[in-house]
């Protein structure tokens, strides 16, 4: 049994309700022994990260709600010399505000940067999963309750199995076994618009071929002359564009370290 979060990035509209509800619960409210009050500003036990991808007009956004990952192998626990951090039976990882001595070792150990320091109280603080509410009959943490699109889900791992299938975790290489799963995190894209500069018309149905060392995908331009190769891993790609009656176009070694907008691509008539 372990409490688990599943966050569907594909349903996150970036409203920040989760970040704000967290503050509503924890700022100015003292939930000792679960947590001392969160400072009014500067801490984000739930933090929305904004990602703007591409260039005009091929721009997409996604938001990553980032909170304590309540890891199964939480690196913060052994890092804490005072034994102030515990993983409860239900899987939630808590910092005991009475035991924390403010050494900050847990902050260094955490791969996710989700532990904050309260200078005034000399205390490390982070998401508690609203354990003070769950222990008193509430069904979910405030961030989950406040999410207008049900993008943030919370429950026992078994209950969420369907959502966890195919989901990813952040930085799996850190080996922390996080208990926060993310769905539909977009990969990089390569996109463009294909047009005929003489007729001033988009070219619909142009064949666009994406290739890399171990990747080959074909797509066609749509009614706006647009093509999209989405969810690409970072890497180098070649793109070939062909349309009947036009000379082809070839782009080599496109680097998806960033999303790539090839812009409006004119094709010359043969």
């Amino acid at each position: 049994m372990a409490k688990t979060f599943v966050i569907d990035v594909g349903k996150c509209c970036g409203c920040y309700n989760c970040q704000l509800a967290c503050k509503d619960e924890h700022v100015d409210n003292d939930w000792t022994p679960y947590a001392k009050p969160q400072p009014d500003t500067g801490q984000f036990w739930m933090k929305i990260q904004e990602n703007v991808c591409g260039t005009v007009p091929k721009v997409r956004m996604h938001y990553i709600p980032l909170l304590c990952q309540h890891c199964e192998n939480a690196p913060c626990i052994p890092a804490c010399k005072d034994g102030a951090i515990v993983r409860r039976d239900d899987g939630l990882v808590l910092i005991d505000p009475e035991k924390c001595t403010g050494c900050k070792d847990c902050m260094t150990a955490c791969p996710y940067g989700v532990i904050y320091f309260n200078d005034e109280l000399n205390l490390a603080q982070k998401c508690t999963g609203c354990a003070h509410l769950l222990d008193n009959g509430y069904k979910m943490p405030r961030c989950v309750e406040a999410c207008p699109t049900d993008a943030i889900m919370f429950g026992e791992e078994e209950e969420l199995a369907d959502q966890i299938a195919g989901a990813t975790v952040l930085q799996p290489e850190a080996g922390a076994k996080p208990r926060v799963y993310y769905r539909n995190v977009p990969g990089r894209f390569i996109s463009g618009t294909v047009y005929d500069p003489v007729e001033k018309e988009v070219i619909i149905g142009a064949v666009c071929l994406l290739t890399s060392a171990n990747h080959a995908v074909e797509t066609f331009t749509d009614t706006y002359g647009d093509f999209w190769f989405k969810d690409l891993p970072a890497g180098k790609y070649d793109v070939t564009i062909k349309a009947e009656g036009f000379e082809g176009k070839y782009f080599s070694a496109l680097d998806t370290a960033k999303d790539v907008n090839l812009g409006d691509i004119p094709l010359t008539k043969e």
Partner: protein
Amino acid sequence: MAKSRVGIGADKQVIRGSGLMGPRDSGPPMVVDVGEGKIKRIRPLAYETEYDKKDFNVWKIEARGKTLTPPLHAIPGPLAQSYKKRVYSKNRVRYPLKRVDWDPSGAPGSTGPGGRNTQNRGTSKYVRISWDEAAELVAAELRRVGGTYGPEAVFSQADMHGESKHLSPSHGCMNPLLSLLGGYTVQMRNFDSWEGQTWGAKHVWGCEPVGEMAPTSNLYPDIAQHAELLLFWGCDPETTPYPIQGMMSSRLCYWLSEIGLKSVYVCPDLNYGAAVHADKWIPILPNTDAALHLAIAYMWLTEGTYDKDYIATHAYGFEKFEDYVMGKEDGVPKTPEWASEKCGVPEWTIKALARDWANKITSLIHGNAGPGIRGPYSSEPARLEAMLLGMQGLGKPGRHQAKMLEWWSWVGWFPLPFKGIVSPSVFMLTEQVRPVGAHTVEEGMRPSYMGTHPEVVELLKPAPYAPLQLIPRCLVHEAILDPPISWWGLRAFLEPAHEQFTQYTYPAPGCSEIHMIWTDSPCSITCWNDSNTYIRALQSPKIECIVAQHQWLENDCLLADLVLPVTTRFEMLDMGMDTGSGLLMSVFVEDECIDPVGESLSDFDVVVKVAEKLGLAEAYTKGKTHEEKQKLAFDGSGVEDLITWEEIKDKQYYVIPVDDGNYEQPPGLSRFAEDPASSPLSTPTGLLEFSSSALEEHFPDDSERPPVAHWIEKGESHDERLSSERTKDYPLLCMSNHPRWRMHAQGDDVTWTREIPTMKITGPDGYQYEPVWLNPAEAEARGIQQGDIVKIFNERGTVLGGAFVTERLRSGVAYMDHGARWDPIIPGVLDRGGAINTLTPHNVMSKHCTGMVVSGFLVEVAKVTDEEMAGWRRDYPEAFQRDYDLATGVSLSGWLEQ
């Protein structure tokens, strides 16, 4: 939610609405936990807390094998979720304030010690006074001004958008008292949310009372079942609805995408809706939509891809429109090439859009925004859009104009089928904008239930004297500085199209100019047109006294001579209703929550204080306590036969079962589409008017709003295009949207939202500046980097901001939301807080259209150099020495005399 329920750490649980529109609807209901007299938490109400789901008869939309149902809890937006910070803001007015150098014993126009010093409004600070002194001062000024000039010398500014409350509404509480004193001059709100549709589209399709397509019944079931393409035209479903009706729009947009509809966004910015929902973003230059519309019409006419049969039976004046589009009228065919240069969209994309729209069953989606709203000549794109919809068979299945907010619509239409078996109507105790000369209940637009509850009728009976004089809100500055003035229409907010052909003047015959202002809507500086001139107008010696009643010391409050502290909704009793969130309708009791912050009183009780000094308290209150009024509000709510007072007082809310009859309502204009003869539009011909018969009759020679909608490059009212000579100094078009994190001017002081990157940019000096969005190319051309302090400016003034350099905005544009709090360095000239409306055009939309222009105007943006800032600090030290809270921004303490 029985009264016995309490939250963790709390000793009491109550309900509050969270809407911030002001009139009518309370917004999504929230559960408030109160402990030790303080708000501990604010959460969305779960409807099943006291009831069973089966009691609700939950609505659904079925389309393409999928089903949409509402969530069983309220889904408020971010401002509702962070409202605790609003209640306890450092910027709350905690006691009555008087401007230090306003001496009411001074003669009108007097300056110096013992004078009224109206010229110092916006500069001078405030001192605390007692409630007794404040009420006596207001009463004395009312007596003096009324006695000297007549009752119309007192000007009531009391229209929308504050907290949505009923027993003590945010707006208009002073009006019955002013009426008891013999009358007043009313500020008539221009149709700010749908200027273009009201002054333009009404002349195409009628669609009273607003001018947006109506009726709106069952639009989304029909769209889900039949439409293929959604054009979100200047619409941000992830911003505008949030603080009014919450976030059903978000869920709906995800669902419409899920069932396979394509969403194309036409807007200069990758707005928050486009950012997550768009299949295609077409970045257009601000306020150039009319050019794009005309090119689309050109394509359809050229390729024959419009609904000719429909036009043959449903249109009037189509040939004249065709002549204009094809260039027969003016020799200029409105080709994609012609339009591309004006609107900044590539020719090939214009053609592709025109064909996609013609090939697919298409609906247009708005959110009280878009091309038809607040730009120069916005009557034209609003008309053209209606015509384009007409050319593709408006009203046929899946072919509509629909909105992503105001789910209750205006006259009982519901685009989502959530209407309850009764549609509740909790009364508002006072009236905001009583039409001039409206003496009867009907004319005052009172709700229909009034006839059935004698005590309610008595309570709501209009005060004796209706206003005899009005000033349109968009012309207040001109009325003060340059009377007499005249304008067309606007006798009332929401009036039929034919009223637009009546001309009014100020001063009205027999009425005085205004000499005293009483406002409960102190936001014109940051929300209305040419507000630098407005600031200068309110500094006029002619305006001898300004009284503001408000919760926060912000914007126009800083021009007031007396500021009276008002409670938030959490500090007073009320009855609430949610009829507009689009989920389920509910009525709720808003019982005692927390004590008033400081010495604040409800808006109603503020007026009672003054009424007492005038010997009119009994006449004003009608002898009813708040508890009695709360009960009467229930008695007239419409649910009084469905639940007892005792039960709702205990459970605190009631969810109204959904009416199965909702599904039977014909969608949109389907009846007109089917048979225009039996279901005509409200236009003079009953048809879609491609040349307006009313404009042909009344203004045949108006070059700014001709009978056939035109592209207006420039005119006597406005010169705000990229073709203007002014672009040598001001080469960018400024777009100003509804703010994402505020409700217009409301909520700029919330420390938690001010940490969000698109809410404020912390400058190198620690000041939190309002973001000015620039495309990286425009920023680079000006040597501007993310986070720089920049100035945005034109002939009308300068506003400082923080550079937000982003691919979310096309080039040629500077974008700054309205609603940031004014923080003057030089009042009327230079603002640090980000009140972009200080730079907006002075003139109304066009000479016969009394609407405002607050977006789509020319500006330049430049980096503020260290020398420049140092110069301002040297020359205006008092502005920089004002106390400024790093998290809250402008704060009360900065304006108090130490």
